[in-house]
């Protein structure tokens, strides 16, 4: 069976590493720079999840310049509202404020300086009977 890792292309990988640490608390696992000192590949981690960042070089234009993202990364966190405030303070563009979704998650959406979009969510706990108007004996 295969394993998957999202790969986000960036114009400035070193700046993206710094941003993702400050905004979302991702941890740097490794970075690779060529002889010119430009970081062309990096790996970051959140819990058991990993993402790769890469600079394709050449005539690459990031989503901010293209006007559309093709890949979006979803992240599951414990406190979605706290992460949203952290991301906002770090300069992320919040494109959707935290809100309960009807499929059982609370989620916000943010755009990073490279134009990549992120969905950050946490599962909503199971409802207690009192939460929806039911009563229990005693």
């Amino acid at each position, binding site marked *: 069976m295969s394993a998957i890792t999202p790969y986000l292309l960036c114009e400035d990988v070193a700046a993206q590493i710094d941003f993702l640490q400050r905004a979302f608390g991702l941890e740097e696992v490794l970075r690779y720079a060529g002889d010119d000192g430009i970081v062309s590949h990096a790996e970051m981690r959140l819990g058991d999840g990993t993402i790769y960042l890469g600079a394709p070089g050449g005539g690459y234009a990031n989503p901010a310049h293209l006007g559309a993202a*093709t890949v979006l990364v979803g992240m599951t966190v414990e406190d979605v509202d706290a992460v949203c405030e952290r991301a906002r303070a770090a300069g992320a563009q919040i494109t959707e404020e935290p809100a309960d979704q009807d499929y059982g998650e609370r989620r916000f959406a943010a755009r990073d300086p490279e134009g990549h979009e992120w969905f950050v969510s946490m599962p909503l706990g199971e409802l207690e009977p009192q939460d929806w108007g039911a009563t229990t004996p005693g």
Partner: protein
Amino acid sequence: MSNSQTITPLLAYEDIEAAHDFLVAAFGFAPGRLDRDGDGHVVHGEVESGNGSIWLHRISDEHALAPPGPGGTAGGGIVVTVDDVDAHHERARAAGARIDSPPTDQFYGRREYGARDPEGHRWWVGTPIS
């Protein structure tokens, strides 16, 4: 997304159902859910890998999310790690994946090939070199 999956990639597709079927046939992912609206049109899909799912997302103006299109510029893609990259490559090619680069030993310790799916998303599939 399951509770244990902290990172989930989402790819935008114009035809989610066709993309789902292609990813299962060409890349060997397990089929996942296909959610339909009242008209039977698929609005959300998933395929499953060994370490979690990939969400197949509708084109979304509010999130500026769109597929690259054939030959278009992708903002990223998915790296896939498999047991036998050469067999995987043959299967993908036979299923109609566009091969950007054939399986090649890379200096970073992987034998890897590059491919694109019908909507232009990029895939890098590799096996660690032992």
